[in-house]
């Protein structure tokens, strides 16, 4: 218990104090964008992780990130909504869509479910190209930065447009959302719901024989997963101030899944670590030019062979040995 508490405190210190201090010391404020991306992508990956947790390989999170991004962008640009209100609405919209999509496709297992979800991302991209409201390939651009949040006349969050460096604000926003999402995920997994999800993952027939409504539980997990995806997409377009059909593609969907694999499917914080390592790793390899993808993929294959249970399994090895 105390060990967990220390871990949490160290994590919070690192995220809220060490990272900003380091960036201030090196003067590379562009790194804020990198860490903002990592935080947001890890929220989407956390959703994918949850579908893994009920025994489904989800390669379709990009679809919901794109959907959430467009919902937010459309509400802001065409309906004049505040950025802040679009966040929960984008999440709920994606969750609702995923319930409709999930009911038929969650009956599928293994590679069949994976294939259908893979196609979902492509379907979303084509939809975004075709629909009039998404403005086709030109996308939606010049989205205004988030406005202020005030409560009883007190300004809680200032207008991002008036800030000297809105990047820092987006960093704090993303990190706080990431912590909230992972707190929800952690609680979910460590409560009885997590045990029931695990029973589902291990044997659906047996789970239904002990009275678990497997269809409802699957859809619930998928809806939460898609909520995370939509939320992450919505914040993303706030940070980049634009969205295109290619903002989230099949590659992103695959990356969300790889983040979970790399971090460890057996660990709630696996997707967070996986996203950090993959994102930074990919960017660090940028200097290798044409070899970037080759080195990256080789490293991925080696890691999966050596550490099939993910990076976090290193920790549990040490404890055992």
């Amino acid at each position: 218990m105390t060990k967990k508490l220390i871990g949490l405190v160290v994590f919070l210190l690192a995220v809220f104090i060490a990272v900003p201090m380091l960036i201030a010391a090196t003067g590379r404020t562009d790194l804020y964008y990198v860490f903002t991306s990592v935080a947001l992508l890890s929220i989407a990956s956390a959703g994918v992780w949850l579908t893994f947790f009920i025994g489904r390989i989800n390669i379709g999170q990009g679809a919901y990130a794109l959907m959430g991004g467009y919902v937010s962008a459309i509400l802001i640009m065409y309906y004049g909504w505040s950025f802040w209100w679009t966040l929960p609405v984008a999440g709920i919209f994606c969750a609702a869509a995923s319930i409709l999509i999930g009911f038929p496709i969650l009956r599928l297992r293994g590679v069949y479910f994976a294939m259908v979800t893979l196609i979902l991302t492509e379907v979303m991209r084509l939809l975004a190209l075709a629909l009039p409201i998404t403005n086709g390939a030109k996308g939606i651009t010049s989205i205004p930065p988030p406005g202020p949040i005030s409560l009883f006349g007190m300004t809680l969050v200032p207008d991002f447009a008036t800030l000297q460096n809105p990047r820092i604000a987006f960093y704090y926003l993303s990190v706080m959302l990431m912590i909230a999402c992972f707190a929800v995920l952690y609680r979910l997994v460590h409560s009885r719901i997590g045990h029931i999800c695990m029973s589902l993952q291990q044997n659906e027939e047996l789970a239904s024989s002990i009275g678990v409504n497997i269809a409802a539980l699957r859809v619930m997990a998928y809806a939460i997963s898609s909520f995370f995806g939509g939320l992450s997409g919505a914040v993303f377009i706030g940070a980049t101030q634009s969205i295109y059909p290619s903002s989230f593609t099949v590659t992103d969907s695959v990356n969300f899944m790889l983040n979970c694999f790399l971090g460890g499917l057996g660990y709630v914080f696996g997707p967070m670590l996986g996203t950090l390592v993959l994102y930074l790793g990919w960017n660090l390899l940028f200097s290798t030019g044409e070899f970037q993808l080759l080195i990256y993929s080789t490293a991925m294959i080696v890691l999966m062979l050596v550490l099939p249970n993910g990076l976090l399994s290193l920790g549990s090895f040490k404890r055992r040995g």
Partner: protein
Amino acid sequence: MSHILEVKGLTKRFGGLTAVNDVSFGVNEREILSVIGPNGAGKSTLFKLISSFLKPSAGEVTFRGERISNLAPHIAARKGVVRTFQETTIFRNMSVRDNVIVAHQLRARASLLGFFAGSAEARRDEVRFAESADEILSFLGLDAIRSELARNLPHGHLRALGIAIGLATTPTLLLLDEPFAGMNHDETMKAVAMVRKLRERGLTVLLVEHDMSAVMKISDRIVVLNFGEKIAEGTPAEIQNNQRVIEAYLGVEDEAIGL
């Protein structure tokens, strides 16, 4: 006497094959009833039909006067008809105790949201589930292995764990799928004693099995299937002397030895 479970004209066709053909029988409360038959007689199909894992082509199953065929398995379980599985159908990556605790799903009073938020009701549920799991494990003589990972258990213990999972749902009628399959004589004797204890606990037991000697020992009544049809029903003594049953079983053996 009115039956607790009633099977009426139950029929299941898979394409052109009729696996179960117009089978009817009743199960009395606190009875041990066995369904036997040679391989391919339709036992497993009948079993799945009764536990709502398959939907019948015709006929129905009623439990306490209420129709349970065509319901989803988890609804049938909620009404008190719970099945166990053949072989190693357990939650492999959980401890024995966690297997039984998670199986208490039906007894939960708190909602999923309650469990998420850790409400008082949910905490009371957790305590009750743990106590009940320990009681079930000691009832079945599994306390010594309760922290073992389920996938590491030997065969006989796995079967018992399957029954423990079933018991956690507090069934009225427990359906056992070949509880003695793959067991040697000693293990079978232990399992027979266990099934008897289930009845002492107040349960009605319906089992599907082809180990004849074990079935003869524990059954109050036996239903015999052959080629999807019921060919006999009665006490073990009646079944042993039934000409059609003897023919059905001898017929199979003739084929088996190539006569």
